[in-house]
């Protein structure tokens, strides 16, 4: 199973990013092979639609589950359309969250926020 986690930085040590759409990078992790890679989120610096672009990036990475502290409604719509499940992270450690996910300890992400669209426009 391939999972994605929004992360703050490309280099280690690294933490889970508080935002999904505006996360600068995604860690794409293959649980079966333990292979991982960083994908740049080109939507992060965009004027708008960051969540849509971010979700597209994740979908293109053949991801099956996303571990994130929060997610906006547009991103959630894209992820749902692709059949990707969302789980709520706990704390900002990437490794601990991946381990918790493997043990089935992470809860499905329920509260999809309405987005922060149009702010500053």
């Amino acid at each position, binding site marked *: 199973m391939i999972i994605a986690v929004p992360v703050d930085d490309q280099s280690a040590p690294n933490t889970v990013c508080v935002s999904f759409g505006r996360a600068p990078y995604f860690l794409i992790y293959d649980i079966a092979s333990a292979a991982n890679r960083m994908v740049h989120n080109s939507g992060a610096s*965009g004027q*708008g*639609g960051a969540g849509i672009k971010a979700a597209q990036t994740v979908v293109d990475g053949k991801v099956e589950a996303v571990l994130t502290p929060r997610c906006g409604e547009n991103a959630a719509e894209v992820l749902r359309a692709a059949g990707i499940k969302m789980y709520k992270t706990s704390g900002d450690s990437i490794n601990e969250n991946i381990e918790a996910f493997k043990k089935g300890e992470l809860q499905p992400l329920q509260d999809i926020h309405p987005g922060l669209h149009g702010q500053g426009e």
Partner: protein
Amino acid sequence: MKIAVLSGKGGTGKTLLSVNLAAVAGESTYIDCDVEEPNGHLFFKPDQIRSEPITIKIPVVDQQICDGCRVCVDFCKFNALAYIGDKLLIFEEVCHSCGGCVLFCPLRALSERDTVVGEIRRGYSDQVRVASGILNIGEASGIPIVKGLLRDIPAGTTFIDCPPGSACIVMESIKDADYCIFVAEPTLFGVHNLKMVYQLVRLFGKPHGVVLNKCLPGENPAEEFCRQQGIPILGKIPFDPELGTINSEALIAAREHKGWKQVFQELLQTVMGEVRRETASHS
């Protein structure tokens, strides 16, 4: 002559000022660009209302023709399009109606349809032509409505009642104005809000002046700021319970009482003198 009335926040007196100036200006036009909460019409109570829907163009896809080349997805700078599981998703509220996706689609799988986002109501109140923009609840941007309001304005004096703040919609409202009036409150918070619109209007290079509202005896930080910056002070409106009461009853003070009529007539004279002086020196 188009005069825009603006402030950095709501409740400073933009509508009070623009409604009363238009009321004493005789034959004139009042335009309410505060399309998210238009209230100028509550004061003017215009009749002979004509309504005009405002539409924007939103792309629609024919999924049968679309082959997923993603030219449109990559083109859209607002990320309003996504291609997921052999389907193109279109996020209407993110779309800015630029039409680029339709233009670039190599298979012509995209076309445009009109979507109503609000309306413009035009009517008359004595000698004042009143136009109000109304954005439908849930719509993302009032800019198409402001564009409609400011298209084909009749000659003569026009007062543009702007939305609060200094965002895109305010820029759209003042873009073609000949003169800008700031309305400022006599507090530090008032100064902060005044600074926002002052910076914006300077960026646009528009001649401008300020009306100090809710003035009390004693210090007035907004007045001090204007003096420091050399912003012309066009007039002062006192903090007056009678004016507040008239206004809260949706009545136009200048039409209700001779005293207030005179206050706004004098203010109008100052404004028009300043507008003529500034526009002459800018042209």
